[in-house]
């Protein structure tokens, strides 16, 4: 398992990359996305909010690579600048559900008994809802803001982290090295936090990567139906929603480019998650 892999990890890493060229592609895409998120506002050739009615709905050209939208704003600049916001929402949501979910899941897997029963019931209840629908309901109640999109996305992702953490902790609970840590005089809480928890991180990383893609989709979906981010803020979901009106009359570039950016980001995280899973546990490949 993951613990045993540590020593020849570099060699194994290269082996997995060679076996699976798709993962290399995903790594390259990740670098591009992170670069855009970090330097997007500096690189954007135009102000993403500056409208110019004289220059509205122009198709892609040398001056405007992705064309201009119905207010004459440069679509390329808007797509580029939106990267940071879209990533920020999904990373914040995933980080939140990772922290809460892995804590709850570890406690459930480690202590069992009524702790496990209560946490299991919470997980089952969240999973009894279609997740996107639950997210809509939560945003409706908490109020329509970006912050609440993050909370809603975090809540609907919780069950995945709870389940993985619970399963991974409960198989390690009685492992030899854990017993050794106990016999060395560590308290139960210390054993869980310092001996077991670091060892469940590799499978959790896979979950995070797979989940990031779905968190981006979820957040963009919510803003597509008019929740969370408000215009004129550049954000991929809302840009697709604004462009939707113009698709029927043939102005495809308004919706295509933000949609493609969204797709590439999600695709990248999904492929990366698969690659990480191969790296950590080749048997789970599907």
């Amino acid at each position, binding site marked *: 398992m993951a613990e045993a892999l540590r020593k020849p990890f570099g060699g194994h890493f290269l082996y997995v990359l060679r076996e699976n060229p*798709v993962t290399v592609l995903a790594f390259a895409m990740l670098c591009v996305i992170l670069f855009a998120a970090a330097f997007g506002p500096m690189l954007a050739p135009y102000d993403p909010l500056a409208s110019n009615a004289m220059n509205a709905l122009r198709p892609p050209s040398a001056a405007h690579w992705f064309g201009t939208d119905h207010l004459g704003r440069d679509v390329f600049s808007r797509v580029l600048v939106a990267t940071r916001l879209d990533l920020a929402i999904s990373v914040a949501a995933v980080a939140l559900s990772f922290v809460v979910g892995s804590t709850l899941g570890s406690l459930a897997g480690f202590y069992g008994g009524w702790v496990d029963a209560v946490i299991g*019931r919470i997980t089952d209840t969240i999973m009894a809802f279609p997740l996107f629908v639950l997210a809509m*309901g939560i945003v409706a*109640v908490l109020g329509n803001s970006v912050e609440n999109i993050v909370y809603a996305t975090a809540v609907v992702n919780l069950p995945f982290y709870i389940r993985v953490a619970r399963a991974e902790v409960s198989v390690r609970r009685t492992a030899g090295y854990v017993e050794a840590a106990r016999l060395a005089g560590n308290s139960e809480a210390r054993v869980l936090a310092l001996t077991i928890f670091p060892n469940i991180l590799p499978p959790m990383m896979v979950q995070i990567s797979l989940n990031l893609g779905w968190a981006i989709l979820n957040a963009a979906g919510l803003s597509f139906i008019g929740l969370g981010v408000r215009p004129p803020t550049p954000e991929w979901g809302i840009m697709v929603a604004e462009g939707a009106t113009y698709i029927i009359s043939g102005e495809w570039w308004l919706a295509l480019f933000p949609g493609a950016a969204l797709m590439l980001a999600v695709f990248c995280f999904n492929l990366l998650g*698969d690659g990480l899973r191969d790296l950590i546990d080749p048997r789970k490949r*599907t």
Partner: protein
Amino acid sequence: MAASRLGIVARRVGGAIPSLVGVVVVTFVLTRSLPGDPAVYFAGLMADAESIAATRARLGLDRTWIEQFVSYVERLFAGDWGVSLQTGRPVLTELSQRLPASLELTLAGLLFAIGVAVPLGVLAATRPNSWVDHLCRVVVTAGVSLPTFFTGLFLVYLFYFLAGVAPSPLGRLDFIYFSPPHVTGFYTIDTALAGDWWTFRGALAQLVLPALTLGLFALAPIARMTRASMLAALSADFVRTATAMGLSRRKVLWTYAFGNAFLPVLTTLGMVFSFLLGANVLVERVFSWPGVGSFAIDALVASDYAAVQGFVLAMALLFVAVNLLIDVIYTLVDPRVGLEG
């Protein structure tokens, strides 16, 4: 044997009760944790102090939480899900009138996804690590990475604007057709029952693009699960035995391997259905489909909370019912169930 299987089915039905209770509790909490005074929201925009007080008494907001919960459950069972602010009609009526449209779309999408993903998964499993396998993996990952609303728009652009083969993406039937007599509420089935093949074609033409959009999204989990469970089945002893006995490849592959590999796929369908119910909302928006999803979006934008909560509750109940149905089918189909005890 038969009796024990019936017992297992009954136990599965009983096992859905905690989920139902959980769903009702969560929707109750969602109803009661609105920021500010719920009575003000539910009384409507034109409410004065008197009607707010009346609403508070009607909703029982002046009583304890437990009493409120009991009366909430009572009203749910009595069919009183509140009144929609936008339309002024009962939420339950609105939802039940729109549900067939959503279900028709979801089921059409699911059928398409199963029809494509299962053969794809089997193909990939028979040639692991070949280019077919890699291609299959990339295609299904791309499918799940596509934002449904974006796929929908793109298909509209290709087939409506460029090719001109699809009808305009506005609803379930073009205005030149009359809606069929209401039997199931599924236009394709109702028109076929009425023998009105001209309208059937019209309804089908409207259904194809949104169903395709939904189906693309559902390909990945089904294809992956099919591939994984087919791989496991193909390496099992009974498949080796069947091959050694000289059975034809087709018989080994479909009867022996796939017959066993299908059960995990069936279980995955529950999760797929959850995704589809969510994606449905977005697809209905893109295609102006008059289903529950469009209704919920309008309600969200108009702060029509009774309608939103009715929608969340209805979708959750539907999902619990679908999971139960899958469990029961699983119990009835798998000959091993009931033998191990």
